[in-house]
């Protein structure tokens, strides 16, 4: 896609995006995603016609940056409440499947 004239995504590029997104897609899903993404991006290319050379981006409507509160402790949720959100708890710790022997 770096090439402005190329309106498609290779299967490798689509695979890279899926890996970054932590989505395990089958080959067929990846193939479909590649075409869908290319089609949408092909349309979205119309942004290139807008001159934004001296324009600052807007990251939020209030143009606010790093609003900080005072660094004091506030009441939060109890550990037990949070641990009760999953059934995968052992000895007070979260568990995940074994992936190393």
């Amino acid at each position, binding site marked *: 896609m770096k090439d402005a004239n190329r309106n498609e995504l290779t299967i490798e590029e689509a695979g890279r995006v899926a890996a970054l997104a932590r989505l395990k897609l089958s080959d067929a899903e990846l193939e479909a995603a590649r075409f869908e993404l290319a089609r949408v991006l092909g349309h979205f290319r119309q942004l290139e016609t807008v001159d934004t050379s001296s324009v600052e981006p807007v990251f939020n409507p209030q143009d606010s940056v790093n609003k900080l509160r005072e660094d004091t402790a506030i009441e939060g949720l109890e550990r037990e409440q949070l641990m009760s*959100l999953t059934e995968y708890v052992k000895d007070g710790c979260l568990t995940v499947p074994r992936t190393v022997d």
Partner: protein
Amino acid sequence: MDLLKQTAGGVGLLLADRKISSVELTADILKMTEERDEVLGCLITVDKANAMKQAQAADDLLADVGTGSLLTGVPMVVKDNISTAGIRTTCGSRMLEKYIPPYSASVYSRLQKIGAVMTGKSNLDEFAMGSTCETSALRLTRNPWDHKRVPGGSSGGSAAAVAGGLAWYALGSDTGGSIRQPAGYCGLTGLKPTYGAVSRYGLIAYASSLDQIGPMAQDAADCALVFSAAAGPDKRDSTCVQDVSGSLRAGLDKLNRDVEIVLSGGSVDKISLKGLKIAVPAVWREHALQPEIADVLEKTIKKLETAGAICSECDLPLLDESIPAYYLIASAEASGNLSRYDGVQYGSRTQAADVSDLADFYSRTRAEYLGPEVKRRIMLGTFALSSGYYDAWYLKAQRVRRLIKDYYQSLLADYDYILGPITPATAPEIGTSLEDPLTMYLSDIYTVAANLTGLPALALPCGFDKNNLPIGLQLTGRAYQDADLLRTGMAWQRETDYHLRVQQIRQLGPAEGNTNLFAGGGNEKIHQSLTGVAL
């Protein structure tokens, strides 16, 4: 139930005068919900015990004279991406199908304090990503005006619940039109408030620089009551802490008093269209707009002028470009916000026995439990933020956003409001939108600018198409002038009666075996009463 014809404020008055009790009213509406929701599919979760407990608390509050508000004891529903402690909050996703949040959204807590009664959590497009409510993994919601059609999205369950007579008002969320568009499709009034007016703490995030919570109801006066209760500073949402809400609050308190006067049969001078300067972008006249919508809008302009408003044509550059800007930004933010669903601390997780490493575990969990539209947007957003593409796509979109924001600001220096359609067409039939995502994205063309700019926008009924489906208009106002916007909505509704038609839909409910309330199905009388035309 005759009370279904009433607005939330109307029912609130009866409750405040102790002519009815919230416990009885809530029991009735729960029974109604049972009868109707099998067909309409508005609610993902109905919590009767919670509703009855809240109704009792509301009655107690009302018994103590002067402590209630006009919403105390009035049954409502909350979109299922707004956290409710102890009550399942799914986002319409299999990922959160069993998730019970340990804390409540600030907006829900605020409503609880004034004695709100929530009967259930309403359906939505999965993680609020969709324009029809059809991407929900958990329910199919039907439009109460015509069961073949979608209620709109993403707050489709909220809209269908109010239009279908299951609630007097609803909370929705609006990231790119998700309150206004379903309100339009269902003949309701809906407000996307100014960014920062309502706390999003506890709203399950989709796109944080665009998300806003707002009211959906039968008219602007009800929206004013709900918005007034929902808005206000919250130290838990950094967009909502600064005291921009000072001026917002003063306007709302005044508006609230005026609503009470109007509901009690009095009249208020300030509710008028006279002298309002309204910008009418010529550009939508050249766009593909359903002919009846174009017609209705021209008539709307004439009516506004007759009532004393001054409508002037204006330019609206970058209308087409607002769609790519919106979808790139929203998807980029979504890809970050939804990265938290990894199956470890809460939510669903893969049961695969052969995961190779943690990344594989996350990736399988997400692939198994997120739906196609959510995956599509995560892919788009991840792409737009990825190394080598960030500047050309994501940053480019944010720069175009600046141009759109600046233009709207300059327009609102000269005009009080910007008028436009909500959607290019009325509600589509179920099953016709999802196969072509790009076309679905393009249908958001008139709503996304309010989110990109942060400005408040109000959807109001203004007519009907040839199938008697509702058509809405949209007014965009100045930042933090939400109270004035709602006041103008009330003035419009004093001049017109389009917003009243939904009363009949609410009253009627889903007739058995009837897919279109107006075409065939034995409702000729209703059709005739609404249109003056015999079938």
